[in-house]
């Protein structure tokens, strides 16, 4: 399907292809080493940013020991950002639902390079016989399953049966042919390669879906005619993701993998493979036995991508949205033009209104009732704990606890949460003035309508003194609630 490669096509690849760029990059060894340790060796996808930085730090630490800091002067996060930037596109950066930390995956182009570089190292011995066997097997399936003449198929099956009969006969006679150790290793290697190929196929398929998705989006965005015509054109071109060639092939594979009978068979075979004597010394035997555990998440992820893309596409094509989007774009352009025009005299007494997203109910009884001040007491066991070298003057010396700072600490935590205990707040903003600060928090809580002190439960708060020793206080639980 793809055109012939000529000088120009190859040159274009050399100029534009992300994988080729990676090979030419100055820091390719660093990048590739990192990609291998973070993604391909442990067979991981969707890795969080912090985890990647940790891996990269390890890699950097190793090479800097040998070459010194100057060779790789930037820090891990800078390298990471660089490699994920759109002009490199060696890593794909994205945000997953429910998590604020960006996630990364290797792009198919980068993965190809990793695998190519790995292949340069060469193998212990080259798989030959097993390759030949699989070529035969594939060829046989292709020819036999495409045969339309029933007589020919019948004859072929008959021949197979004869062969099986003959072999059964040989076994009965005691002539048992067992695979030699080199043969077993050869097959094992072939199997590992195939399994890796399959995993990299998934990555590729997912990327192709994204490409397809982008094409359709471009078409929608630049479409001038009516919406009906647009839909016709999209479906006529079979660009609907699910029904594309990619989509159907993938679905077929998924159905195959999900068939219970097949999975049972696969499990059984893998299990038996681990007990083959000739392979017992292979240290990467487990990679093959984990094969199906690697497949399932990979396939599921691709499946999820397709589902998500299709769903969004449907939303985009929804007629109300389609028309409204056009109208909205027009309005926004007009507003932008007007605003630009008046850039130097922006309207000052100008107010738009927008409805709040919550209902304004403030019941008087919702506020906590007044709590007697006697509750505001620090429990004694604070002072009893090892007070020889406790600097009590800290309590009495007139140093100032900035109540505004404490208030803003509380507010900043409540920005994220509806309510927070004092322990939550001091976890986010560690105590720096010790007991005096706790007392100030206590006061704030006692005065606030939106805080309550719960004597039923206690909490332990820690702070570090200047000399590095840690102090703790046990106090009633204080709960701050976000003002409605």
């Amino acid at each position: 399907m793809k055109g012939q490669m000529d000088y120009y096509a190859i040159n274009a690849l050399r100029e534009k292809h992300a994988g080729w760029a990676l090979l030419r990059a100055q820091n390719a060894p660093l990048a590739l080493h990192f990609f291998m340790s973070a993604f391909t060796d442990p067979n991981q996808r969707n890795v969080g940013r912090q985890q990647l930085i940790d891996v990269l730090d390890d890699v950097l630490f190793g090479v800097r020991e040998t070459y010194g800091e100057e060779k790789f002067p930037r820090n891990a996060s800078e390298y990471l950002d660089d490699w994920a930037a759109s002009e490199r596109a060696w890593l794909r950066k994205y945000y997953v639902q429910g998590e604020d930390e960006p996630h990364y995956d290797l792009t198919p182009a980068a993965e190809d390079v990793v695998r190519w570089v790995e292949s340069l190292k060469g193998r212990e011995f080259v798989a030959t016989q097993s390759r030949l066997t699989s070529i035969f097997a594939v060829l046989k399936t292709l020819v036999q399953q495409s045969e339309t003449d029933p007589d020919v198929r019948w004859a072929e099956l008959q021949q197979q049966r004869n062969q099986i009969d003959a072999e059964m006969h040989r076994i009965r006679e005691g002539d048992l042919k067992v695979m030699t150790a080199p043969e077993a290793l050869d097959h094992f290697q072939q199997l590992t390669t195939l399994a890796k190929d399959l995993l990299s196929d998934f990555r590729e398929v997912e990327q192709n879906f994204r490409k397809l998705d982008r094409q359709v989006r471009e078409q929608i965005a630049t479409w001038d005619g009516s919406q009906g015509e647009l839909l016709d054109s999209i479906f006529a071109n079979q660009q609907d993701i699910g029904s594309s060639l990619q989509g159907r092939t993938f679905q077929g594979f998924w159905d195959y993998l999900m068939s219970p009978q097949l999975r049972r068979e696969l499990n059984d075979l893998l299990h038996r493979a681990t007990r083959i004597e000739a392979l017992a010394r292979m240290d990467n035997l487990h990679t093959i036995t984990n094969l199906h555990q690697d497949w399932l998440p990979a396939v599921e992820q691709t499946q999820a991508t397709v589902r998500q893309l299709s769903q969004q596409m449907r939303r985009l094509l929804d007629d109300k949205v389609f028309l409204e989007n056009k109208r909205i774009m027009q309005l926004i352009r007009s507003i932008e033009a007007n605003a630009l025009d008046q850039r130097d005299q922006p309207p000052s007494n100008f107010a738009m209104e927008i409805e709040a997203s919550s209902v304004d109910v403030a019941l008087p009884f919702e506020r906590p009732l007044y709590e007697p001040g006697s509750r505001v007491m620090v429990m004694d066991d604070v002072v009893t704990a090892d007070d020889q070298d406790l600097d009590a003057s800290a309590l009495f010396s007139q140093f100032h606890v900035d109540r505004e700072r404490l208030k803003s600490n509380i507010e900043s935590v409540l920005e994220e949460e509806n309510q927070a205990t004092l322990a939550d707040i001091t976890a986010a903003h560690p105590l720096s003035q010790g007991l005096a600060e706790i007392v100030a928090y206590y006061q704030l809580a006692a005065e606030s309508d939106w805080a309550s002190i719960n004597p039923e439960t206690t909490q332990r708060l820690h702070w570090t003194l200047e000399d590095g020793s840690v102090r703790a206080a046990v106090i009633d639980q204080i709960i701050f609630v976000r003002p409605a």
Partner: protein
Amino acid sequence: MNTASETSSPEELPGIVTKLFKGVVYAETDEKVWQSLLALTSHVRDYVAVLGLNLILDESEGYAFLRSREDPEGTLPRLIPRRQLTFDVSLLLVLLRKRLLEFDTNSSELRLIMTEEELKDMVAVFLPESSNEARILDRLSTNIKKVVELGFLRKLRGETGTYEVARILKAYVDAQWLEEFDARLADYRESLTGSK
């Protein structure tokens, strides 16, 4: 999990309604409430209708919230407050809406994430050329804070200066709202040229 009779019994109704009173319910973060809401949609609708409120529920975007019913005579007291927005904040909302629209049409990602730098670049064109850049930046961060308060931007945890544009923005900054903004802006412009 729940039997049919349980889900259809309005026992869960108070929980859902109070949650909606408190703010937008997202499928992603309030999964349990969301499920009961889908099962009890008509109950909730009827209930809030008594208070002059409409339930807006967008299943494909995954959010639900309450909105005041159209009240042309203005006879009902407002249960849902209206927030006054300055020109700057309004403009910021418009630009965010545009970004979201472009994002949806161009990419297959679900979450639009913007850094403070990107927000600044987006707005900068529309700010008067002033010698005091610091003051303008201050104003911008106040505006961003305001939009965070309104719930249309959300600070990402652990990533400083990075925000997620809430998809709910689409429901509030809709064609009608933009039309009004556009009309007012045009009026203002006319009044300027008229008085000169």
